[in-house]
């Protein structure tokens, strides 16, 4: 325990005193959140999203011409309730189905819904019945904030653990530690706890810091949000430990970490929703840990979902953490 605390304390000091690393993990998420809040604050939509509930093969001519409208994206939904919930949050602009009877729904407080209604009528869909839903808009910044915080956790954990351990190994510091009674497990757990403590502190700080200025939506349980953040961080650190387990070249480590982070940056739904993306892409996204962290955190914050709705994200993150950590500890080399 004394050894574990000593290594953790030294690592904490190193991180806090390394100004460039500290400012990077602290300032970047603020910068991103505010940049996105301002860049995407206007409502000049370039794309309207329409949800079709049912089976696409059963469409008749009028809908097809409606769907052929430029700048309009049609997303197929099996579940009407899910589509309507998205409509309430302004994440899609219109929902319609044809069976059992032709109905369309728009959000009464969304100008996009009004536009689409006109287009539908003009494309020969005037026989549809109109229904409306109500619901405050989830701004893009509300939606993207859990993504950015998760993204920051991913970068901080992967590079902060993976890259640092490789640097220790390359410089011979790990070899020096090997000559002491410190065990590999004590060392790895100390690195993990140090990073966990720092990332959680920073994330909480950024979370409430952004809230002060943006007053973003938080519908769910803070405890649940904390738990998924904790689990997501553990998962990312474990992945970082696995990457750093044996390699001693910083260039190789940087390359591998980039290879891991780039797909997650793009495919895990940090910046944009993957709804409507090719099913293959959606499947790939499911094997990325960041997807589960982002989805879970976003569901809690913007939809107020509980553990019953997102337990799958928890399970996937837990299993991944255990696998990464086990493999990482098994193949770890001091030199």
């Amino acid at each position: 325990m004394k050894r574990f605390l000593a290594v953790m304390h030294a690592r904490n000091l190193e991180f806090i005193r390394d100004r460039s690393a500290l400012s990077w993990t602290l300032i970047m998420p603020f910068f991103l959140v505010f940049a996105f809040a301002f860049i995407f604050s206007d409502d000049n939509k370039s794309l309207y999203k329409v949800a079709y509930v049912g089976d696409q093969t059963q469409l008749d001519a009028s809908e097809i011409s409606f769907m052929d409208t430029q700048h309009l994206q049609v997303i197929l939904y099996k579940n009407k309730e899910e589509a309507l919930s998205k409509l309430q949050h302004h994440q899609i602009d219109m929902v319609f189905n044809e069976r059992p009877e032709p109905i369309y729904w728009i959000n009464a407080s969304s100008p996009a819904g009004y536009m689409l209604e006109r287009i539908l009528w003009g494309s020969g869909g005037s026989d549809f019945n109109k229904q409306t839903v109500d619901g405050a808009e989830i701004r893009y910044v509300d939606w993207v904030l859990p993504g950015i915080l998760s993204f920051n956790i991913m970068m901080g954990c992967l590079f902060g653990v993976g890259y640092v351990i490789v640097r220790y190994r390359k410089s011979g510091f790990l070899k020096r530690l090997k000559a002491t009674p410190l065990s590999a497990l004590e060392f790895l757990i100390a690195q993990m706890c140090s990073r966990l403590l720092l990332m959680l502190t920073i994330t909480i700080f950024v979370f409430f810091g952004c809230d002060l200025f943006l007053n973003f939506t938080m519908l769910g349980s803070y405890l649940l949000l904390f738990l998924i953040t904790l689990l997501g961080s553990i998962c990312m650190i474990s992945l970082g430990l696995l990457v750093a387990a044996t390699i001693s070249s910083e260039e190789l480590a940087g390359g591998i970490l980039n290879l891991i982070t780039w797909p997650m940056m793009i495919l895990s739904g940090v910046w944009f929703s993957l709804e409507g993306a090719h099913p293959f892409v959606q499947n790939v996204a499911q094997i990325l840990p960041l997807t589960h962290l982002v989805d879970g955190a976003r569901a809690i914050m913007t939809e107020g979902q509980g553990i019953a709705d997102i337990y799958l994200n928890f399970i996937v993150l837990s299993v991944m953490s255990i696998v990464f950590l086990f493999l990482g500890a098994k193949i770890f080399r001091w030199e």
Partner: protein
Amino acid sequence: MEPIIEIKNLEKHYGDVNAVNGLSFGIKPGICFGLLGPNGAGKTTTIEMMEGVLEPSAGEILYKGQRIGSQFKNEAGIQFQATSLQEFLTVRETLQLFKNLYANNLDWDELVELCSLQELLDRDNQKLSGGQRQRLLLALALVNDPELVFLDEPTTGLDPQARRNFWDLVRLVRSRNKTIILTTHYMEEAFELCDEIVIVDKGKLIAEGSPEVLLKNHFGDSIVQIPQKDISSSQLDRLALSHKARGEWIEFQTHDPQVIIEALLKVSVSLAGMRLRAWSLEDLFIHLTGKQLRL
């Protein structure tokens, strides 16, 4: 006396390269033991196997008669040839980190004083001079009050003054009844510090014993040197003494310098540039291997 650490038929192969090729020796407790050889002789490989950091390809290492076990790490202090330390920590914090890794500790004030670190405690460990850094690394090796201290080329890269200061430090550590195992390619360093040495070359042992005894066994007592320009070849012929040319010098090896000096005077050689020197381990190395130390 039982050796504190003993190696038997130790080998280390890297592919086709035999870095260490069947080394055996034992080290008595309480002495300063030197492992000498040119760069690439296998010194570091040998000492790292003894430290338990490197796995031998063959042979065995016995610490107090047993194979190296868990207690070894608590009782050994190690200074590697090249070690980098965790960045952004002061000397004090670096020492504290290592202090906390061990069950036993040398008293803090004693350690700081022994290695003359009083003035440096609050300095960033990356901002130390070569000599200061070696003192810190030595302090890290002593932090657990070890019985056995390994120093791998501790003075390589230091200026002569810093090297001499470090030697004083090693003598101080040695006076506390610790066993020191030192590698070096400076023969002078080994002569100054070591009670016993082994000389290795190409992974093999070529000589062992105390430096004085080794020199006595292999050479006469001293060498008389005359500058080449002060002595002609006809004078040399008339002398009929065995001699060697060495750089600018002609050298005569002898048990009794007086005999040589009288012979030189007889053939009217000027003694103005004459020097008398003792044999060094450097000479011994050349004598044993037929080549210069590859520095």
